[in-house]
């Protein structure tokens, strides 16, 4: 797969193209320049490390949206086996922006639900850029209920710009569909582990992310509104998205320090899109550890713990008013 470089990665892109050239030269030359190549490769690595060490929140959002980033189905094939995809909400449509079904995790049955973006233009359109309609959330709800019935733990993967803001979505009750999921997930009697793998876009993300454990990949983001949306409202210009991203605190690190997520999963050097296999390995280990922790709890304990957690969200002060 050819990697596309982001704007702030241009210095890396230049070094990489130099490596490419050198390799080309070496192929039809008698002189051995492999030492030169490995030197430049080391330089590229260091450059990547340096740049990624000080990513701004806005740059992080760019990585989270990277077109080569692994999506739910990629992790499904690398981490899970025997995936049986189920379709449809049983009342109006199938929504390909959310995928889901039973699978095996280390041999054990489970339910997997996740947002799904498309790779090429055609698939992007089919998957509606990962923006679910009410049908998608209702399909997810159906699968969650089924997971509860058969006591299958649920793994959800979050990667959406947001729920689809369209006419038909409103007509079919986008608000109700999201709200219903929040209601049911609050009390669902199976462990739920949610992982933000790319973009955690507002209510459209939360609708499958109410969980016992919430994790984020290192360069994923999770926010109440997109930085562009926030900027165009508060700064009156979408160009100030960088400022909005700073102010809102959308990165895994910031959200972990605020106590809003439980765990950060480190990504390979230069982001998950550089090495899908490494990213999958790290994700799998985290899923495994979190599931075994949650499995120690009885169902009533689990549900009570989830409820207390939900109730603890928020920062306010208390003061007796006269």
């Amino acid at each position, binding site marked *: 797969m050819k990697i596309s470089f982001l704007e702030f990665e241009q210095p890396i892109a230049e070094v990489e193209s130099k490596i490419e050239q050198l390799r080309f030269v070496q192929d039809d030359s008698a002189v051995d320049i492999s030492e030169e190549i490995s030197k430049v490769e080391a330089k590229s690595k260091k450059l990547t490390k340096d740049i990624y060490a000080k990513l701004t929140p806005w740059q992080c959002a760019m990585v989270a949206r990277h077109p080569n980033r692994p999506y739910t189905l990629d992790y499904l094939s690398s981490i899970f086996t025997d995936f049986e995809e189920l379709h449809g909400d049983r009342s109006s449509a199938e929504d390909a922006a959310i995928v889901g079904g039973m699978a095996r995790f280390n041999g054990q049955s489970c339910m997997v639900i996740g947002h799904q973006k498309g790779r090429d233009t055609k698939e992007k359109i089919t998957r509606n850029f990962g923006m679910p309609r009410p049908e998608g959330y209702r399909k997810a709800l159906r699968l969650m209920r089924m997971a509860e019935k058969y006591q299958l733990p649920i793994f959800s993967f979050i990667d959406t710009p947001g*729920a*689809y*803001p*369209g*006419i038909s*979505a*409103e*007509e*079919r*009750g*986008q*608000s*109700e569909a*999201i*709200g*219903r999921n*929040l*209601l*049911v997930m*609050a*009390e669902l009697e199976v462990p739920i582990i949610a992982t933000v793998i790319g973009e955690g876009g*507002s*209510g459209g993300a*939360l*609708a499958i992310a*109410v969980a016992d454990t919430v994790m984020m990949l290192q360069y994923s983001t*999770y*926010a*109440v*509104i997109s930085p562009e*949306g*926030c900027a165009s*409202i*508060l*700064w009156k210009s979408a160009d100030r998205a960088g*400022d*909005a991203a700073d*102010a*809102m*605190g*959308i990165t895994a690190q910031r*959200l972990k320090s*605020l106590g*809003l997520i439980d765990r950060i999963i480190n990504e390979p050097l230069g982001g998950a899109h550089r090495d899908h296999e490494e990213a999958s390995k790290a994700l799998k280990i985290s899923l495994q550890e979190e599931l075994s922790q949650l499995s120690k709890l009885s169902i009533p304990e689990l549900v009570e713990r989830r*409820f207390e957690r*939900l*109730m603890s*969200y*928020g*920062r*306010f*002060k*208390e*003061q*007796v*008013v006269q």
Partner: protein
Amino acid sequence: MSWLQKLLPPKIKRSPGGRKSMPEGLWSKCPACEAVLYASDLENNQQVCPKCSHHLRLRARARLNLLLDEEGRFEIGAEVLPMDPLKFKDGKRYIDRLAAANKETDESDALIVMQGAIKTVPVVVACFEFEFMGGSMGSVVGERFVRGVQAALELNAPFICITASGGARMQEGLFSLMQMAKTTAAVAKLAKHPLPFMTLLTDPTMGGVSASFAFVGDIVIAEPGALIGFAGPRVIEQTVRQKLPEGFQRAEFLLEKGAIDMIVDRRELRDKLASLITLLMRMPAV
């Protein structure tokens, strides 16, 4: 400019700001039918236009005053006050916005919760104050909502939420998104008991408030003409690049689409709620 406006001599053209030049106080103009009304007439009619029945926006305390019996009112959660967990700043600091909203509205945040009674039937009512930062839902709104639900459980009383909100409060970042999960989880707990949870959706109810507890109640009511939806009309127009149908996202549209149970005129709300609650709770009619 329409052809008619083009034809008119410049003097007759209405200046765009002209409508608002009416002196404040004595007179008021209905934004829907443009009838000129005595402000006192409008107030005596619960801010409903006597000519066309257009429902104007109403402040939260005024609403609670109209809805609840005079005796036995008690405010819940007023001790919960906002703070600024992210040290958020755009053009203005969040702290300053809070202070300005407080000064402007005399409220400390965008939700007022009160226990009381409707025609002697005990209830807990949570009411959004749209004038306080667009009725946006942050940590304080979420916590007061939850305390209201707890009070309803303790009192064995129905919980009613009257919404008017632009959505989540951006200045609290992900904390505000989590209020969607928090409020709805409280509702899930309430739903285990035979205590009605009802919502009255008023103009406007959008975003995070619409997409959390607003539509999961036993009975969902809307005020006539209220704008209710997940995404704002402008966002949708930009996304789909087509003109939105007439009446899109209005209460009447939602009723037609099966999203709400009924539309109730503000002047009949007390009777309607009392009737619905007593029916569900198998109480004698009041």
